[in-house]
Structures are given as structure tokens and as C-alpha cells.
């Protein structure tokens, strides 16, 4: 009979690390309160000191030069200067957002969460990738805006002539590479396929002619630059043994993106003057677009 009351082993719940826990009141809510107060005061102070901009009333007849989108879209506006519009403005950002959203489905290892830079060498990888993103993007911008050619000429005195036109900008390649005339007559399904189109300039889908060189400078080279740079970076860091896990690959990709994104935003915001020419920020002057006052 006595056996009936012998305690059976009970599956115990995993012990919670109660010693490591603190109470939300007061330990968290006070920090939140202080953070909110600091920001409230900072925003108040900023708003007392700096007024929100208000220019002249909107006028569709008067176009300021340069006309710019809100600053957080100027990275796209900067990209637009270098490649096919649909690609820069819509396709690349959409694909990138998709890639970012897919991060957790690519890196499914729960290991290394909840701590800053959880893997070995991740700080080094972050720094290197961000630096490559920054330097690489500036290099591409300088090349495509003709500054690289200027710098080469300044330093070496070589002007290059027609054969080196490609150093001036990417689109110059279009005039340099031979492309048979007959190929221009082949039509293909265009990239800027327009259905549901209406309004001025609309019509049936405009078929484009096969022009490999145009495709190369507008889409090919930019794609190679972006995908190639990222892939090469991950590959190299993998070969030297830094990138080990998928998490590492993502750190490289994301840090490179942050670097490039920062440069594009900065360049589009501060370094683009009239006619979207690359200038020093202190040389940038905005023309109001009023005739006689440019």
C-alpha cells in the first residue's frame, strides 16, 4: 500500500534564471521614461532653434535646379544617374528589400543571437565590408562622373584620347564598342514594357531594338558592379577564413549595403549641384528656376 504514495519523478520545467532577471518596474520603465524625456527635450530644443523649411508656393512652371526628392530617397536618385531608371528606381530597391526580408530564412541557425556581433571576427568583417562599400561606391561615383579621368590627368598628365573615353564615364563605352548595324533592327521584348499605360506619350508598348552595348552600359555593368562586388567580397573573406557561417555572409552583405547606402544618400544629398553635377557641398547652389535669376 505504501508504494502508492511514493513520489514519482516529475518532469520539471526548465529552471528559469530568476537570479538573472530584474523587474520591469522600475528597471525598464524608468530607462524608457528617461529616454523619452531626453528625446522630448532634444526635439523641443531643436524645434526652438531651427525652423522647418518653407520655400515659395508650389509652381509647376518654375523648376528649381537641382530638383531633389526627400533626402531618404536621394540614394535612389543618385543611382538613377548611373543606370537604367526602372532598375535604379524600382527594381533594385524592391529586390533588396526582398533580400533583406529573407535574411532570417537564409540564416536559420539560432546560435549567436542576442549579443552584439555574435560570431568570431564579425566586428572585423563589419568594418571591412562597410569600408569596401564606402570606398567602392565613391570610386564608382567618381568614375561615372568623369572625376576619375580628371584625377588621372591631374596626377599623371595623361589625357588618354578617344581610346580611353571609358575612363570618363560608363556610358562612353557605348560609343567605343563596335556593334553591328544590322543588330539594331532586331526587336525584342523591351525592359520598359508598358501595359495599362495612358496619358501623354502613351501608346502601344514601344518595342526596342536589340542594342547590346546600350544594355551593357545601362544595365549590364551596373549589375556586375553591384552583384559582383558583393559576391567577390564574400568569396574573398570566405577564402581567407573569415566568413564561416551563413550569418557571417549576411554580416558582410548587410555591412556593405549600409556603407554603399550611406555614400549614395550623402552624395545625392550634399554633393549634387545644378544639373546633378558632382560638386563639393559648399559649391552646390540651388537655382530657384526663376528666369533671369539662375
Amino acid at each position, binding site marked *: 500500500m505504501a508504494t502508492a504514495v511514493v513520489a514519482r519523478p516529475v518532469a520539471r520545467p526548465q529552471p528559469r*534564471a530568476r537570479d538573472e*532577471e*530584474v*523587474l*520591469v*518596474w522600475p528597471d*525598464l*520603465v524608468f*530607462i*524608457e521614461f528617461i*529616454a*523619452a524625456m531626453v*528625446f*522630448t527635450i532634444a*526635439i*523641443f530644443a*531643436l524645434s526652438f532653434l531651427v525652423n*522647418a*523649411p*518653407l520655400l515659395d*508656393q*508650389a509652381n509647376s512652371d518654375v*523648376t528649381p535646379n537641382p*530638383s*531633389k*526628392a*526627400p533626402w*531618404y*530617397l536621394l540614394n535612389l*536618385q543618385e543611382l*538613377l544617374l548611373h543606370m537604367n531608371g*526602372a532598375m535604379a*528606381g*524600382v*527594381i533594385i530597391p524592391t529586390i533588396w528589400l526582398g533580400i*533583406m*526580408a529573407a*535574411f*532570417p530564412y537564409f*540564416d*536559420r541557425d*539560432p546560435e*549567436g*543571437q*542576442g*549579443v*552584439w*556581433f*555574435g560570431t568570431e571576427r564579425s566586428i572585423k568583417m563589419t568594418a571591412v565590408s562597410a569600408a569596401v562599400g564606402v570606398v567602392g561606391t565613391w570610386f564608382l561615383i567618381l568614375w561615372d562622373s568623369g572625376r576619375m579621368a580628371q584625377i588621372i590627368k591631374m596626377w599623371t598628365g595623361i589625357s588618354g584620347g578617344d581610346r580611353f573615353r571609358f575612363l570618363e564615364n560608363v556610358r562612353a563605352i557605348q560609343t567605343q564598342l563596335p556593334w553591328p548595324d544590322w543588330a539594331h533592327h532586331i526587336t525584342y521584348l523591351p525592359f*520598359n514594357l*508598358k*501595359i495599362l*499605360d*495612358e*496619358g501623354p506619350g*502613351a501608346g502601344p508598348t514601344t518595342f526596342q531594338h536589340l542594342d547590346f552595348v546600350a544594355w551593357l552600359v545601362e544595365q549590364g555593368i551596373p549589375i556586375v558592379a553591384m552583384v559582383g562586388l558583393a559576391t567577390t567580397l564574400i568569396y574573398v573573406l570566405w577564402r581567407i577564413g573569415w566568413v564561416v557561417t551563413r*550569418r557571417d555572409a549576411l*554580416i558582410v552583405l548587410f555591412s556593405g549595403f549600409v556603407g554603399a547606402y550611406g555614400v549614395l544618400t550623402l552624395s545625392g544629398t550634399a554633393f549634387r549641384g545644378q544639373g546633378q553635377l558632382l560638386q563639393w557641398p559648399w559649391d552646390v547652389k540651388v537655382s*530657384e*528656376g526663376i528666369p533671369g535669376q539662375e
Partner: protein
Amino acid sequence: MAVEQPAKPTFADRLYDRMFHNYVWKSIFRTGYPNTPRNQMLVIATNVFLHLHPTRLHRTHVKVTHTYCLGGLSFFMFLGLTVTGILLMFYYVPSVDRAYLDIQNIQTTVQFGQLMRNMHRWMAHAMVILVFLHMMRVFYTGAYKPPREFNWVVGVILLVLTFLLSFTGYLLPWDQLAFWAITVGTNIAGSAPVLGPKTRFWLLGGFEVGQNSLIRFYTLHVIGLPLIAAIFMAVHFWRIRRDGGLARPL
């Protein structure tokens, strides 16, 4: 042997007693300051505003350098933008004839109008920056990993919604900055293959920025997008709790 007498209550004591130990106050705040662990947990669990939080959390998560409060501050900016936005709505009419004059009016004749507009503007910029930094924080702490995969996706959606909220607000002052920024911005959207021109037309309600665009952007800015963002935020916060709070090393 003299027995120690209790000190006579001071004026401050009596004032405190009057203010906080009365029938009305206690009907609102049922307990006094929660000074026992039990009451501190109860106040979190039973208060409608605070019960978003768990009652306790791991000590590493209250270190400011773990999160820099970025997610919470993004939400705080959203709340501040709602408050200042409502105040601005009192004076603003989304019509091409009035919008610009209304903004001028807000700045010059409305009490604290300039301040409200400034705060709305700077908080909007701050929110874009904070949301982006929050994304970076979550990435570099590996907080998107299982089981929080989908909450990261919700976060990406909220990032886009933040951009859209800011973008739709940009047109409303109806000055040259607004007009041409939206012209450039919607031209970018219009360059999309297949659906681009139609998307641009839907956004603007026409072929160029005008009255139709203003009313569309206004409606999206003050009700459409905030509602959608609020729904996604609710899901975002709810899932943080469901997934066991902030990510922690296994």
C-alpha cells in the same frame, strides 16, 4: 521612563496624505507607489499602457547599450507625430488654394504653430533615422534569428511604411520643395516596368502633381498609412512578447 512619541506630521506629510490618500485618487490609482516586488509586477501586468511589457526581464536587456532604446524611441516618435499632427490638422486644409497659406498661417498667427510644425518635421526625420538604426541594431545582435524570423519581415514592412508616411507628408506644405520633391519621387516610382506609369497615375490622381495628388497624399498621410502602420506595429510588439521578449543567447 519617557516613551518616544511619534513625530508630529509635518505640513508636507499632511499635503501628501491629502493628495494621494483620498477617495477620488484611489478610484483612479488603486494602489500607491508600488514599492514591493509583488506590487511592481502587478502594476505592469494590470495597467493597460504598461502591460505591453513582461513583468520581469533578463538583466542584459536593461543595459542601454544592448538596444539603445531604438525601437521604443521609434514608437515614441510615432506617438509624438500623431499628437503634433492632430494639432496641425486643426489649421490645415488640403487644397492647392489654401494649403500654402495655411502653413504660413500656422507659422505666423497660430499660438505655438511654428513650434508644432518644427516638431512634426524634425520628429519625422528622427523617426526615419531611428527606424533604420533600429534595424541595424536588430541585425547586428542577430535578433532576427529563430523564432523571430517573421517579426523581422514585419519590421522591414514597417521600415517601408515609415518611408511612405514621411514621403506622403512631404507634399503637404505645398511649397516648391514639396512640389518638386514629390514630382521627382513619383517619377522614380513611374519608371517601374509594367506597372510604373499606372502606379504614378494612381498615386498622383493625374499626370502631374495637383489637387488630386494633394488630397490623396493627405488622406494617406493622416489616416491610411498610420492605420496600416499601427496594425503592423501591434503585430510587431505582440510577437516580441510571444517570442519570449528580446533575443538572448541560447
